[in-house]
């Protein structure tokens, strides 16, 4: 009986590993879709291609929510990794909140359709680049947390690096916005979008800080 229980535990474990991998894939894909969506918006505005990317991120977000709920339910219902499940739950919820930020930012572009002057497009793209790089690195660090804990640090320092780069670009961009001859309403509008994108990098850094503690707790 104990042997058949163990076998079914190994089967369930394998399925759950697949779900966690899928969760990470979705977050990584959302980052790529977000980056592409902003590029499309800057080039063509709120075009059908942009809407398509927005729907893709929406769908990924709702799929990822379902995955997260399923993973959390199984971790608790089957008392898996009892000493770390609280940390895993925290990690997944924080990673999921990054996806919510992507979705929120794209809805913002779709609803508010900010008018971004062409000479600022490069800075916005650069900001999106830094933010999505930070997310890519936190996804790699999180994958390592599950599979190869010693490699977590290899990715974490990059998250910090890209977050700082994003901060630099956002400060520079905000300064340009407020030094320009645009009217105040547009300045505030553009600045709000800079903050929205920069928040993604900040959240990635917050997750990295928590992940650093979870990693210390799991090291031998």
């Amino acid at each position, binding site marked *: 009986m104990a042997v058949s229980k163990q076998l079914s535990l190994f089967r369930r474990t394998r399925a759950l590993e697949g779900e966690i991998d899928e969760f990470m894939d979705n977050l990584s894909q959302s980052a790529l879709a977000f980056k592409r969506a902003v590029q499309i918006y800057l080039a063509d505005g709120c075009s059908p291609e942009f809407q398509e990317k927005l729907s893709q991120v929406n769908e990924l977000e709702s799929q990822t929510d379902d995955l997260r709920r399923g993973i959390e339910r199984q971790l608790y219902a089957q008392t898996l990794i009892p*000493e770390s499940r609280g940390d895993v739950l925290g990690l997944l919820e924080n990673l999921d909140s990054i996806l919510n930020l992507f979705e929120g930012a794209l809805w913002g572009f779709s609803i508010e359709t900010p008018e971004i002057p062409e000479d600022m497009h490069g800075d916005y793209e650069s900001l999106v680049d830094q933010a999505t790089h930070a997310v890519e690195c936190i996804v790699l660090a999180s994958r390592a947390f599950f599979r190869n804990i010693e490699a977590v640090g290899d990715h974490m320092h990059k998250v910090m690096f890209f977050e700082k780069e994003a901060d630099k670009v956002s400060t520079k961009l905000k300064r340009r916005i407020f030094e320009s001859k645009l009217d105040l309403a547009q300045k505030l509008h553009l600045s709000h979008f800079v903050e929205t994108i920069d928040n993604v990098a900040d959240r990635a850094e917050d997750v990295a800080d928590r992940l650093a503690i979870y990693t210390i707790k799991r090291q031998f």
Partner: protein
Amino acid sequence: MEFATLFFLSSGLFLGWSLGANDAANVFGTAVGARMIRFSTAAMICSIFVIIGAVMSGAGTTHTLGRLGAIDTLAGAFMAALAAATSVYLMTKAGLPVSTTQAIVGAIVGWNLFSVTETDHATLSTILGTWLICPLIAAVFAVLLYRLVVLFLSHAQLHMLRRDAYTRLALVLAGAFGAYSLGANNIANVMGVFVPASPFEDIVLIGGAGLTSAQQLFLIGGLAIAAGVLTYSERVMMTVGGGLLPLSPIAAWVAVMAHSIVLFLFASRGLQHLLLSYDLPTIPLVPVSSSQAVVGAVLGIGLMQGGRTIRWPVVGSVVLGWVVTPVVAGIVCYVGLFFLQNVFGQEVYL
């Protein structure tokens, strides 16, 4: 079986029950406390393997206790076991860590003093020496095993969930080995004093297999230990987790394995024969304290990690238990024998 015989055996059964209630936690405590294994699974495995260990390999350590003092009447054995059980109860009530091993040795020495039988000093010093060495060996095994496990895990790069599943399986197997070793090593504490005055006849079954009278005693003692495991060990297991040092499931596996290896080494006649056949020095077959083996293993892990998280007052009370337990058991046995002989008119020695 006569009622008087059953009555005299009852103190040994009580001692077995308390051993099961307390020491099952050394084998499965952290795993159950951390919810890695269900109590029902742990209790079932523990009960079965304790009985197997007791019946198959309990003779070696019993022989050593017999050399220390061969209690030759059932009434004397009854009082020795009762004194050990009472000391375990009193010390547990006082909140001191206690070992049935040390209690029974104290009680046997108490019987020797009462019956004016000379204690075999060589055997006594072997037993005392083993008690000191046992936690040290457990600590060394724990450190070696821990390093091996860390090396293996850093190379294997298992997913956290798969590692968790393997750890559960490993904890079940280590628990089974631990329960077997506990039965083999500690059954002498429970039934050893009854062996010289055993009320049973050898049973021979078809094909030459069978149970000696000592094995029948060990089977009954094993059942008493199993009863202790099934009825009372759950609450001990649920509180054992944070005793000395908070343990991760992998560290818990290492502690259980180190503990089980030590108990096995000090109980295995097979290993003794193997060493003898290669003209190597043998390991004395001595009942050792399961709790102190675990304490040694956990301390080994704690010291390897820098020793910051070790709760030293708990270590101090364990050392105090080493001294106090045999003394209390010896005194209780001496006084008890006096009453049994002079008030109840029982023959406590020949």
